[in-house]
């Protein structure tokens, strides 16, 4: 599809394969040489299929189709062959002009039962199309070849997203297939303004990447910037959107994600409607969204499907969990080892009672438990599913209960660590949760050395860092710093839909921000009118 000269925009294409330095081989009139060269180009694998045919009406001119088995749609190939064979046996009396060129035109115009066709004139172009799943038809005596889009083969079906689940909302998720993913977006946004700009990244993998945006709603500057950054990438392979993310994020050294990722078509569409740019990478269900702000990572697509009061409550819970997962262990360490006077007496006595006979200082105790938990969590993700119950038994019983009973870890610390762990999973964006987890360890050390003073200075540095971050040039802490009051409608709270008349300012094209009609607040007066 990438070399389809008729449909894609010129200039937006890039073949970032700096590899092919040697002059391109043009197709010759001799079909056998062409096929031979194509075979050589493709490395002559067993899965390269070459089917030769002869056309009765055109002096038995030979022609052939080449494709790679498995990455083409089997049924499409069969239909193609049927139509070709059927055509080959027909006799067309009035078209006996010349063999090669005549047959070529006849085939393109009258016989191929494939929707999308294009033509190429070099071995490389033809070869790369075959590698992408297209079928190439070469005709003896023609200097050009027909590329037929037969991409397909076995791909995963559209399933419910496993990483971002909702209770209420669409259940479809992106798949590894770029075409499926673009179609999922197309099915949601049927606007003619939607743009899909394709590129290819990766010398070896030649991964297709689509830049999706709504023209007129997205800021053109940002779209251009996305293109510019994507064009700069020179790498041998792109296996996941994470590869791309690391190349195009604004700053390399930060624990915070500067691009959002989602495997939900509805979330991606919502981003498009707010003027953000979506980058889709073939081979992964996770698409990237840019530019983003810090607050976006605490929003779930479900916030917009549940009623606004519920959504607001859930959002506040998530924000609170973020702070808990970042701060709770360090606060516990700081208060129990430096500021015991801050605790209520009865709580202090019960904590002190639990700490009796614990051999480690609170900092070490917390580190032990936190690292234990991180190992358990990682084991839970990596282990084969069958071993699952074993891990949970060992984790909960042996490490939790036994450690407390043996007097190695205090029960309060187990409570703190478990609560922290649960809180860290509340954050909808996994990468933001991991950021909180990393910062937690730094804050724990600060708390263990300087107490609350350490935590405060750590948070100050963190805040300064956050305020300095940019995502595609847009301030990361946007509605707060710089302060954009109108954007606050959808950050800590979510106001009802009829009150969010404007798209978030400063993210999208600011000359076109109104997204809904005025005065839609439901009221009894409207009934009659």
């Amino acid at each position: 599809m990438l070399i389809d000269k008729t449909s894609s925009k010129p200039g937006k294409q890039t073949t970032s394969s700096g590899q092919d330095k040697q002059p391109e081989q043009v197709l010759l009139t001799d079909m056998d040489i062409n096929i031979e060269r194509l075979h050589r180009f493709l490395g002559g694998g067993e899965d390269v299929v070459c089917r030769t045919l002869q056309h009765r009406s055109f002096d038995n001119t030979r022609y052939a189709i080449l494709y790679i088995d498995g990455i083409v749609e089997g049924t499409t190939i069969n239909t193609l062959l049927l139509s070709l064979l059927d055509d080959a046996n027909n006799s067309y009396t009035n078209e006996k002009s010349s063999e090669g060129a005549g047959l070529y035109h006849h085939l393109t115009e009258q016989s191929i039962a494939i929707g999308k066709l294009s033509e190429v004139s070099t071995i490389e172009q033809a070869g790369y199309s075959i590698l992408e799943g297209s079928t190439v038809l070469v005709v003896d005596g023609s200097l050009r070849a027909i590329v037929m889009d037969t991409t397909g083969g076995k791909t995963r079906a559209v399933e419910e997203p496993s990483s971002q689940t909702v209770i209420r909302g669409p259940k479809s998720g992106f798949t590894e297939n770029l075409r499926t993913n673009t179609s999922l977006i197309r099915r949601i946004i049927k606007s003619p303004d939607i743009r899909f700009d394709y590129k290819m990244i990766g010398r070896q993998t030649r991964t297709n990447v689509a830049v999706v945006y709504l023209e007129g709603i997205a800021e053109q500057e940002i779209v251009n910037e996305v293109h510019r950054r994507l064009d700069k990438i020179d790498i041998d392979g792109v296996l996941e959107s994470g590869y791309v993310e690391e190349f195009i994020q604004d700053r390399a050294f930060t624990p915070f994600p500067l691009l959002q990722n989602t495997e939900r078509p509805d979330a991606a569409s919502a981003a498009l409607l707010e003027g953000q740019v979506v980058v889709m990478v073939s081979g992964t269900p996770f698409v990237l969204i840019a530019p983003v702000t810090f607050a976006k990572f605490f929003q779930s697509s479900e916030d917009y499907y549940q009623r606004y009061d519920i959504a607001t409550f859930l959002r506040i819970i998530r924000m609170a969990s973020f702070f808990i997962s970042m701060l709770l262990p360090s606060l516990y360490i700081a208060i129990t080892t430096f500021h015991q006077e801050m605790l209520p007496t009865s709580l202090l006595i019960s904590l002190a009672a639990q700490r009796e006979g614990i051999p480690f200082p609170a900092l070490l105790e917390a580190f032990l438990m936190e690292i234990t938990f991180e190992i358990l969590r990682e084991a839970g993700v990596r282990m084969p599913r069958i071993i699952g119950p074993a891990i949970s038994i060992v984790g909960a019983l042996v490490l939790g209960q036994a450690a407390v009973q043996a007097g190695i870890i205090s029960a309060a610390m187990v409570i703190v660590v478990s609560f922290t762990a649960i809180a860290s999973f509340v954050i909808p964006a996994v990468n933001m949760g991991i950021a909180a987890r990393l910062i937690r360890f730094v804050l724990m050390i600060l708390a263990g050395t300087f107490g609350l003073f350490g935590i405060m200075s750590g948070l100050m540095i963190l805040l300064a860092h956050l305020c300095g971050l940019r995502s595609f040039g847009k301030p990361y802490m946007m509605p707060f710093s710089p302060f954009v009051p109108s954007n606050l409608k959808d950050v800590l709270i979510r106001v009802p839909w009829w009150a969010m008349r404007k798209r978030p300012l400063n993210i999208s094209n600011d000359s076109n921000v109104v997204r809904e009609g005025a005065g839609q607040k439901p009221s009894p007066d409207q009934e009659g009118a």
Partner: protein
Amino acid sequence: MRLRFKSICCAMLLLLFASLTTGCWNRIELNEVAITSATGIDWDGNSWIVSYQVVIPAAISSVMGGSGGSGPKSPIIVYSTKGKTIRDAIMHSYSESPRKLFFAHNRVVVIGEKALQHGVNELIDVYFRNSSTRETVSVLATPGTARRILEQFMQLQAISGAGMKEIILSEMKNTSILPNIPVYQLAMEVTGDAKSAVVPEIFVSGTEDTSSLDSFGSTSIPSKLKLGRLAVLKDDKMIGWMSRKESLGASYLRDSVKQSFVVVPCEDDKGKKGYDTIQILKSSTKVIPKLKSNQLTFTAEVDVTGSLLESTCSQDLYKPGIIQLLEQGGQLQVSALLQEAWKRGQQLNTDIFGAAEKTHRKYPKQWKTWSKNWDQVFKQAPLETKVKFRMARMGLSNKSFDYLMEKREK
């Protein structure tokens, strides 16, 4: 660029090492502190004896129902150290306790009578100079030694230090006879214009001690900690006690009555005598100095709202006259309390009612002369009482039970 990165890395590394060299310098783990719940101060004639009531957390958790060891363990331990100064005595504790004394959760400081007579200035200095101690600690006086008070167990509260604080707070909230005096208030009163202060008394009622957990094997314990009288201080030294009745009067004059009660004698039509108990729901007092022909007088304007709790007289409370009668009775009672307290204050030669401050504020010019011999001025100043007593509620039944019985008999 690379150089800059390198230098930043170097700086960060150095900073990291710098933070490591400090260690965790004033870090102290929970199992390295001895949580002190009460402190006792005694004076033996030439040195201070400071007693500490230290909580044993492990024993507490077993008392509270955790998995404990064998048999009941005392949740608190009491020990004393001696020194020339209070802090000197506390320093000596390091040579006999495995853990560092931790005073931030100290609830009460109990001062023995002898120490009170010696003076509390030094104690106040200790509290204000050190950040580890809190000025919100309640001060209590005791006629014997403070150590004995600290040694007593209390019912319902494993840590008697915390229990004493709870008693004084609940007493102040419900009957307002004795005020809760935190260290900062004691300091303020001692340094005030009148240089007089009060400290509530706590004592062991009963001859035996309840200093063993064995006592809790039965339904009654041999002795109890009780709040008693009010110790009166003049120039940081104790000069005498005020009875509970005088103390209540003092509470009215100090405007520290939150909730209290009065028992008013009453009489029905047939001359049968009884008592009405009235709960004081609200009370506010203004002590106003007045200068009349070179004679300083004080007027106490008390505004009291009460509710009838109990009535043993056969009265028809629907009649406004009866209510007026009740109000008058209450008025008399409160006035009598005020007068009694005032007289006792004059007798002890201490102005614990804050009269000096009020006079200072109202007559700043004359104060210059009065302040030189305020005790004499105060001693001669009479108190006039204006009590406004208002019955707000009669309770759920308007007629007394006696009255209803009589009616039925008819």
